């Protein structure tokens, strides 16, 4: 499967990662090589095989609806790059 620079650009946008033109070119080649290697999976016959998302045979792991203490506001905001009046602050959302 080909990973064109256009596709990579699309994927980078989806991942919200800014790439320099040099990075774009280098990564495109590297990922192409890796995908080429991954393509050996096409040799495997997977007809009728179920996917394994969870390796354990666990099910119905639930918790009771009992309240627990929330974090004190100082702790919540302690790591915030920018804050104001107990809110996290982000650059303008609407263009």
């Amino acid at each position, binding site marked *: 499967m080909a990973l064109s620079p256009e596709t990579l650009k699309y994927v980078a*946008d*989806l991942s*919200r990662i800014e790439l320099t033109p040099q990075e774009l070119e280098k990564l495109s080649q590297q990922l192409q090589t890796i995908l080429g290697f991954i393509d050996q999976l096409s040799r495997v016959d997977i007809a009728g095989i179920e996917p394994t*998302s*969870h390796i*354990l045979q*666990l*099910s*119905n*792991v*639930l*918790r*009771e*609806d*009992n*309240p*627990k*203490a*929330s*974090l004190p*506001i100082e702790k*919540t*905001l302690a790591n915030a790059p*920018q804050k*104001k*009046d*107990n*809110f*996290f*602050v*982000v*650059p*303008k*959302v*609407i*263009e």
Partner: protein
Amino acid sequence: MEYEPVIGLEVHVQLKTRTKVFCGCSTEYGASPNTQVCPVCLGFPGVLPVLNCLALEYSIKVGLALNCTVQEFTKFDRKHYYYPDLPKNLQISQYDLPISKDGFLEVTVDGKSRKVKIRRAHLEEDAGKLIHEDNFSLVDFNRTGQPLLEIVTEPDIFSPEEAYEYLTNLKSIIQYLEVSDCDMEKGTLRCDANISVRPKGQTGLGTKSEIKNLNSFKAVRDSLVYEIERHIETINNGEKIVQETRLWDDKKGRTVSMRSKEEAKDYRYFPEPDLPPFIISKEKIEGIKKTIPELPKEKILRFMREYGLPEYDTKILVSTKENADYAEKRLKAFPDKDKKPVANWIIGPLASIAANLKCEIYQIKIPANNFIELINLVEKKQVISNLTGKAVLEKMAGMPEKSAAKIIEEENLAQVSDEASLEKEIDAVIKTNPKVAEDVKSGKTNSIMFLVGQVMKKTRGKANPKVVQEILKRRLV
């Protein structure tokens, strides 16, 4: 060409659990910003979700009440998009195996009933709230992680009226289940609408638009009316409908395009690895089924049957579970077989008092026996007139522990039926209105009501109008 609209609704209902869906933070409304959060709902590095069992139970309950198939095997998936109110930039939701699917909800418009098909109802986590300032936005994560049930219909609604009816019934059912407040103002019920039009008789779907920012059921209906017209006009002008999201402007009564450079939706769903799947046994489903109360539709039929009430009255009485329970207690307390007076007093005077007080009927705390006593005093014993009865009821609403009789006594409101004491007042009225009295005598019997009115006025409503009329007839006819 004649066009018909095709509508689909997506309703988000916030479930009324005490704690959030994947952590133990409180769901209490109105806390100060970022105080009902913990590492889990903030999506801090390293945290893991664990599902709230009550959120799952409530979701199953709604599924069953909406005639859905509750799936034996259900799981959660991650849905990815970047937005600052979504702390992990992914939402734990359900993709291909929702808790329930393939249900329906009956709606009646213009006397005709049909079943609106429900595609699915799935559980997911809510996002936080953003407050936009001039140059930046503020983020409050209190709402993040509250349990949301998303209920999606098929494109199977064919008029704004039907959409309105669907929402009203849906809200009523969910409130009956006591799993959500369904309060659009508080955002515990939210609705988006998809709408397209097609030439009548055609089966395919036209290009749709999605309407957001709908803050009431009325807004849903009005926006759909607007959009249908816009679609038809656009097509008639030879233009094409653009698939887009439009915002409803309630004040101006129109939708506007969001015009954002929306990127193609590529949510990259995959099974949530941190949550093993859920297997819902038949026993579990049966157990939950038993906890489902009588729903509005069944209740209407039963009220009609048991209390001999007309459908119109019944529908109003059962609009919410609380109102229905309130009404039923009073219907039962009324000893007569004919329960109509009770229904009349609830949907008439009591409802208008509630409307004035801006509250629900059931919130008027007049005890059932006091309420019944009042009805008896008016309707049977005729101690007071209907008009006085309404006034007494209003007073009772203000002091619910006081009985009707007590209020009548204290305020000396009892009806005067004693002929001797009424004669005097009647004499005076005839004297001051000689011309009308003459008219009655000469055969204009309708004019007698004017004189009755005058007597009522003079006695400040206390005279028994029937007795007054009798006396006047005897005197003048």
